[in-house]
């Protein structure tokens, strides 16, 4: 659940000029810029997101669900802080499905590896807030993100120093000029990742990924991510729909940003335990934030 908002892959259109030739160092610069902009979109942002999952098959060149889809709707607010905006505070409330409606989680995540992620869960049956055991997320195996094919690892940002990057190719893809970049995990990353390699197709003009492929430990293609409906908000580019095709399980998950309000500050108290139990206060603040939805 942590860093919920980070799945919205967004890049700044008004960034510093990038070098014309993509040297190894420049490729890292590209990825750091991509990563920094992902964090930027998560700063002072309210989103209403829909996470849909199903088994899939291809019919007539299109993807179809082979079973009734499962759907979760989440409303979340997040704020970045700390050095290089790498710490985050977020609150997420489940609106659907009915069985989980009202579940709320407050999370403080820190870039400093010596500080543990802190999470508090609102237990609706008891009407009280409980501190959750989280430890340092770097030490935990990735788990399913809200029951979807996405995992907590897929949500991570701020880890560019844990990869070596190489430019594989550049040229037109889906009608846009892209860099195709290979990310190989360094030993510090290899110890905790399930992926042996990532390939990322980065839009050169908007610095937004159009596609990503993740490979398993044997080097075989495991997951395919596509980034669609790319739009600009407050000078930031964002893929409003991210789809993950798990080629092993033949299941897919789609995260769609139904509504977004970016760059809206709230009182410090909103990202505290109070918001999990004081519903009247929470709705009061959210109502004000929702007025800024696009």
């Amino acid at each position, binding site marked *: 659940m942590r860093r919920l908002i980070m799945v919205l892959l967004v890049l700044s259109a008004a960034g510093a000029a990038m070098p014309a030739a993509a040297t190894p160092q420049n490729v890292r610069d590209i990825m750091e810029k991509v990563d920094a902009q992902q964090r930027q979109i998560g700063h002072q942002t309210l989103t209403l997101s829909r996470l849909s999952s199903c088994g899939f098959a291809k019919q007539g060149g299109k993807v179809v669900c082979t079973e009734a889809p499962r759907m979760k709707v989440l409303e979340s607010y997040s704020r970045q802080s700390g050095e290089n905006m790498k710490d985050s505070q977020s609150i997420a409330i489940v609106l659907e499905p009915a069985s989980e409606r009202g579940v709320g989680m407050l999370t403080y995540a820190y870039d400093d590896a010596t500080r543990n992620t802190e999470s508090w869960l609102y237990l609706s049956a008891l009407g009280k807030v409980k501190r959750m055991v989280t430890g340092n997320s770097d030490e935990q*195996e990735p788990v399913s993100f809200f029951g979807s094919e996405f995992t907590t690892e897929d949500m991570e940002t701020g880890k560019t120093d844990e990869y070596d990057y190489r430019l594989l*190719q550049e040229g037109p893809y889906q009608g846009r000029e892209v860099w195709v970049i290979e990310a190989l995990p360094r030993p510090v990353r290899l110890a905790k990742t399930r992926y042996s390699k990532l390939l990322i197709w980065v839009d050169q003009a908007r610095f937004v990924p159009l596609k990503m492929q993740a490979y398993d430990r044997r080097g075989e293609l495991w997951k*395919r991510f596509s980034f669609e409906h790319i739009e600009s908000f407050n000078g930031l580019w964002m893929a409003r729909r991210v789809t993950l095709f798990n080629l092993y399980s033949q299941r897919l998950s789609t995260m769609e940003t139904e509504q977004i309000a970016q760059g809206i500050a709230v009182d410090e108290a909103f990202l505290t335990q109070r918001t999990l139990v004081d519903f009247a206060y929470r709705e009061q603040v959210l109502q004000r934030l929702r007025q800024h939805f696009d």
Partner: protein
Amino acid sequence: MAVACAAGHAGDGDWLTEDEGYALDDTLFEAPEAAPRYSRVSLSHFLTQSDQLVRSRSLARFEYERPVSEGHYVRVDGKVRRFHPSDELADVKGGAYQEAEIEALWWQVSARQCFVKAGRQGVYWGGVDNSFALDQLTPFDYTEALLTSFTGLRQAEDLLQVQCYEGAHQVQLIINPRPGLSVLNHDRDRARDALEAGLHEEWGVRWQWSTEGREVAFMWARLEDNLPTPVGAGGIQPYRLEVARFDVWGMSLSQSVGALLVLLDAAYHRDQLQAFTNHRRHEWEVALGMEYTSTANHRYNAGVWRFRAPALSPAGSSRATALFNLGWSKSVWRDDLELSVLGLWGGEPRIGSLTGLADYQWSDHWSTQVSLSYANAAEGSDIALAGFADGWSTSASIDWVY
């Protein structure tokens, strides 16, 4: 290259070839309703079978909550339980019956740093799971089935709660003008009603301080006991039931150390009434717990709750005892299957149980639970009241929610 071909690429040399067959239709997933949903309806049927007891009951529940105006919020939660003819409680009652209950009916008003919440609600202090050193504000409902969670074992009461926040500090004030007793079954009698009518108001205050990795809370409350105590009457009837009124000072701590969470609840009870005597004494209750998540995301919890068990007969005496618990849980299959195990054991009154539970989510609306338990409990134990029966038992439930 097999990988590249699977991805639809021409080969290593050309990563710019368009993929085919991954086009996603915009109508693949039906968009949810635009308007927020404020209600939830759930239906379930629960069955337990063992040599000694049968539980067969159905539940219909309706919940509704929403903001009513700026700074105001309401919640209603009502349920009807049907106890079928074979159910152990139907035996007590003399036949099948249904029981309607209001679990929540409150109004919350928020202003500045505080909120006021008035109406039917639960208030639970203390952090150590499966122990009640501090969780004595609201009484228990022993007619609820207990598997690997004690969550449903409480009943809400009509009370007023005021809570204020200032930075890392929280202050909570509780006033309960009309406390009730724990529910053992639904066969109410006049004696119990008379006892409940004679209870005085309860009130308490709690202060909590939160910092990175830690929460510390101190509390004080003046309470009525949740169960009546037999005391010497001195007349023809040697004993009568009395509900003790006592003060509790408490302290609660949760401290995270990496993937380990350490919890401590400590309570000092003044003027605790002793069974079969007219004596009162001051007592300590302490619960120590830990929760741990492994790197593979197995969740473990353990705890010990030290308390004074009341005398079970006039010839007996109260004795300090401890209840231990050990639990494990793990979510698999994209969280569709939740597996959990809970073991409990204590010396006085003697109790031991081990329960394994599998909870499977079939869809966004349907889920089932299956459990297998082995228990061994002495009569008269509060925990035994929660439905433990000697020997093996199996339980199953099917739930639908919308």
